[in-house]
């Protein structure tokens, strides 16, 4: 019993830490901060999905947020490729935070 409690509390602490750091959370690209590493989960726009595929961005790909222009586009980098996504489009791109900027 005590061992079990210890284990769960360890996990809970880790989760809290992660949540505090905003990692592992699913959100839209529009919520990304500069320096975040993100995994793309889905692009809910047919045209943009096909165009993004050509640039190298598709589901499962890990990208980083280069900058977010206040109320404007999100710029993300994939390798050395930088792409700006308008804010409206960014909201339709689902991502998971893997690592957050310190």
């Amino acid at each position, binding site marked *: 019993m005590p061992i079990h409690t210890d284990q769960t509390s360890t996990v809970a602490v880790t989760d809290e830490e992660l949540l505090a750091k905003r990692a592992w959370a699913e959100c839209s690209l529009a919520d990304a901060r500069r320096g975040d590493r993100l995994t793309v989960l889905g692009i809910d*726009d047919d*045209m*943009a*999905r*096909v*165009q*993004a*595929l*050509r*640039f*190298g961005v*598709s589901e499962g790909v890990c990208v980083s947020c*280069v*900058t977010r*222009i*206040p*109320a*404007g*586009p999100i*710029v993300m980098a*994939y*390798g*050395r*490729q*930088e*792409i*700006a*996504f*308008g*804010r*409206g*489009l960014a909201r339709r791109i689902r991502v998971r935070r893997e690592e957050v900027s310190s």
Partner: protein
Amino acid sequence: MSRCHTHGGGGGAPEGAPRCSEVVLAGNPNVGKSAIFNSLTGSYVDVSNFPGTTVEVVRGWMGETSLVDTPGVYGVSSFNDEEAVARDVILGADVVVNVVDAVHLERDLFLTLQLLDMGKRMVVALNMSDEARASGVGVDRDLLEDLLGVPVVETAATRGEGIEELRDALRRARPGHGDPELNRELVKMDTRVGSRAEALLVLEGDEAVSVRHGIEPGKDRELIYRARRERVNDVVGHTVSETREGARLSVLLSRWMMHPLTGVPMLVSLLWAMYVVLGQWVAGGLVGVTEEALMQGYWEPFVRMWVGAAVEASSVAGRVLVGEFGVLTMAPTYLLGVILPLVAGFYMLLSVLEDTGYLPRIAALADRSLAAVGLNGRAVIPLILGLGCVTMGTLTTRILGSRRERLIATALMAIAVPCSAQIAVIAALMAGVGPLYAGVYIGTLFVLFAMVGTVLDKLTPGTSSDLLIDLPPLRLPRVDNVVRKSAFKTWQFMREVTVFFVLGALAMSLLDVSGALQWIQRLAVPLTVGWLGLPAEAATAFVMGFVRRDFGAAGFFTMDLSAPQLLVAMVTITLFVPCIASVMVILKERGWAYLIGLLVGSVGIAFLAGGLLARVLGSA
């Protein structure tokens, strides 16, 4: 079409140099295709850094072989005009030289693998290999060649490295390794359409190509793209090694360009510099020489003398040919004396902006503001060009993603954006009345721009497209490239609009000769005097403003107006209908209904805003 087309299809061609065949250059935007084309042919072709500024295709010769350049595209399909043009040129190619940027292989190889699937005989030019080395990117050329199955040649075209090797490699061009999974479907479709390349496009759901063959477009584009993307990632994973990833000055600079706090001051400084160069040096200085000294000093007396020998100058024919709005006097003077230097200057600056990679960053910066008027960031390009010449800006709305955006951008430019010829005259007039009035003038235009844009955004049906734009690395522009590119674009522009200026001059001459011009002037008097509080001659200036926007503004020089009157006149003449050449281009690009709506709207807004301003200022 090639003058001696040999349809080799896949393989089949004999060893040795392909004689009399068509070699096509294909690659993403901004990979140095123009430099490769120049070194291979010794002549120039326009290739823009910014995705989508031109759809011209230019051909050069390497001995018997013709070399055709295509617009930079990220893939072969029909997402826009450039792609459709590139697609058709590539479909007709015997050999494709695929230029890739060694620094951005994960992006560029997507097109490469698509070309391989098309079964074209191919050579890959691994360009910017010098830049790749400098930035710590290593590419295993031998392995890349094995994986792709076609010759891969390292080039640094701007330094002329690797060009001879590339020329030699053309002999070894061959179809490479396509996607084996796709092969069965491709072979099946090939038997229906008779070309592997077109078969691929049909499978990828390309409507234009499918329609040509009367086949239902395929529905598996996304599946095919996804599989291709995985293969690209695989190839990149095996061949590319990064030794370091530096946060260099250009990374910071790029961020500053796009952040409003730093980006807006940078953009304002840029616009100010453009105003100084174009408004003051070119429009104020150079045009004085080209228009007054050359065209009016030498050309017009010359042509009047010759025409005068044949017809009476005061006759109808004489007035149409060499009168105030003459087809042989005003049209060439305006075209060569005013428009040519201004447009050349503008394209020169635009080429610098394109080659540095600043332009897409301005698009990102302006995206939020332009969203408020139903446009996305991409629209800054026609709008900035519109400040040079509204006709030029209107033609450039072709790059916008939807019809809706083209309608809004065209109207905004025609109504609220003064062209550089006009800015120069207005600046000269306003200089005498102090910065307060200049501020009110600029402020009024901004407010009207926002209001007209907001209303159009509400009224125009449909939805605007979102910004999705590739940000190329920041680079220093190369002078020779800038000069050649702007010369080429200026030539294209002049070729396209000359007829409209001549037709415009003809229309004005006929109005003048028939007496309709005087009648319009008389008709407008109550409006100008009663409502705007301007002298009666102002009506003449407004009509002149239709011929040439700067003429309209210049007409006020001699009128001895008070400061508020001058402000009212300047605001009204700016908002008033665009010049007759833009009207012609708008008619061609958007049609009659749109043009009439636009003319009614701009005249209405011009007089409404001018009259209200006159009442606020108490000058009427």
